[in-house]
């Protein structure tokens, strides 16, 4: 099955592991992620104001390109996913914006939000299914105590992201269990890591990530997985992580490991 794949800029530089392992495992699962041509940076944060259009155009180009190919648009980075999904929602629901964007882009076919945006995790859960995935695991991650860290961008706002219950999500835990690992439940799994505040307000971020990691450690976690490069960066920068008390990795790395395609 073919999917249009939108990588985003961080995956080509600082978060290469997120992408590499995803592509390896996709191949092993018989999923063809075809990187879009000439994709542009999505802008990393969804512009929350109603009067900004220009910053959403790059996303619309990718969405329209996927529509033209008749494929779902698959994302890996949580930030890109949030942008694609929310801009798509705007294009579906905001007549005013739809008109302006289409007037500006002059696409062959006006874009009305027809594309379906799915995160790689959703692809695993809804299209492949965790049961099928479990059957394809070659090296079960037995005994690994992994805490899933969701962050904000995949879950909220719920009405638009439609990813999982924003307060008690289970998709990452279900994913980990299907790989044979023991998923650790801890109450901070949906609390924000501070995101881009690390550019400007490191002291605020410090306390936020500290809470998260302490909570995971208290529940006996030995490692944390996440889907967002910025979450990973903030968590790794924390005091506890620097001391080596816990390690952070992308969920795709564990997937590749379990499918035994890490070195492919």
């Amino acid at each position: 099955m073919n999917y249009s794949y939108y990588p985003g800029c961080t995956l080509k530089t600082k978060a290469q592991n997120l992408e590499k392992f995803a592509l390896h495992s996709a191949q092993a699962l018989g999923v063809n992620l075809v990187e879009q041509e000439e994709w542009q940076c999505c802008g990393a944060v969804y512009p929350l104001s109603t009067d900004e259009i220009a910053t959403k155009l790059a996303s619309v180009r990718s969405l329209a390109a996927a529509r033209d190919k008749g494929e779902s648009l698959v994302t890996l980075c949580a930030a890109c996913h949030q942008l694609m999904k929310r801009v798509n929602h705007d294009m579906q629901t905001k007549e005013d914006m739809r008109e302006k964007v289409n007037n500006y882009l002059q696409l062959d076919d006006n874009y009305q939000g027809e594309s379906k945006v799915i995160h790689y995790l959703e692809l695993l859960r809804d299209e492949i299914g965790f049961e099928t995935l479990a059957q394809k695991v070659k090296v079960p991650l037995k005994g690994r105590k992994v805490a899933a860290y969701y962050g904000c961008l995949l879950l909220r706002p719920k009405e638009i992201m439609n990813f999982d219950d924003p307060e008690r999500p289970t998709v990452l835990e279900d994913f980990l269990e299907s790989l044979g690992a023991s998923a650790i439940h801890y109450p901070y799994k949906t609390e924000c890591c501070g995101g881009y505040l690390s550019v400007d307000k490191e002291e605020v971020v410090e306390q936020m990530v500290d809470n998260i990691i302490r909570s995971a450690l208290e529940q006996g976690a030995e490692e944390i997985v996440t889907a967002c490069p910025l979450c990973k960066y903030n968590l790794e920068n924390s005091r506890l992580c620097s001391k080596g008390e816990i390690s952070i990795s992308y969920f795709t790395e564990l997937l590749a490991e379990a499918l035994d395609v890490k070195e492919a």
Partner: protein
Amino acid sequence: MVSREKITPDMAKKEVVRICEISDENIVDCMQCGKCTAGCPAVHGMDILPHQVIRLLQLGQIDQLLQSEAIWSCAACFTCASRCPRAVDISKIMEALRLTLVRVKGNNRLDIEKVPKLLDKNIPQQAIVSGFRKYVK
């Protein structure tokens, strides 16, 4: 020496109306339950608490807000928005407040010259791009 000045509430202030337009949120819906503040993960960096931000807007006291650290401590994590019983998205209001400042020429939050010094070798692009989007116009 304590100094406390009396303020005159002004709900219809043009700056407040502008904030509501940019954010497309209805500040009168808020009934000050404080759920946003209670759940805010960045609350320790807020000099004015999220529910107080809305209250000050309701009173038309926008200057205090524009001088606050609170609007810059918001990480746009949408926790407040997703739990608000009144369906007010404060993250959008925070964004509108930030934009009111950075849209004025020469008012960038981030001095672009200083950016390279801020960066360590691991910081992902995403953070820098986000920073530019949030702090610079």
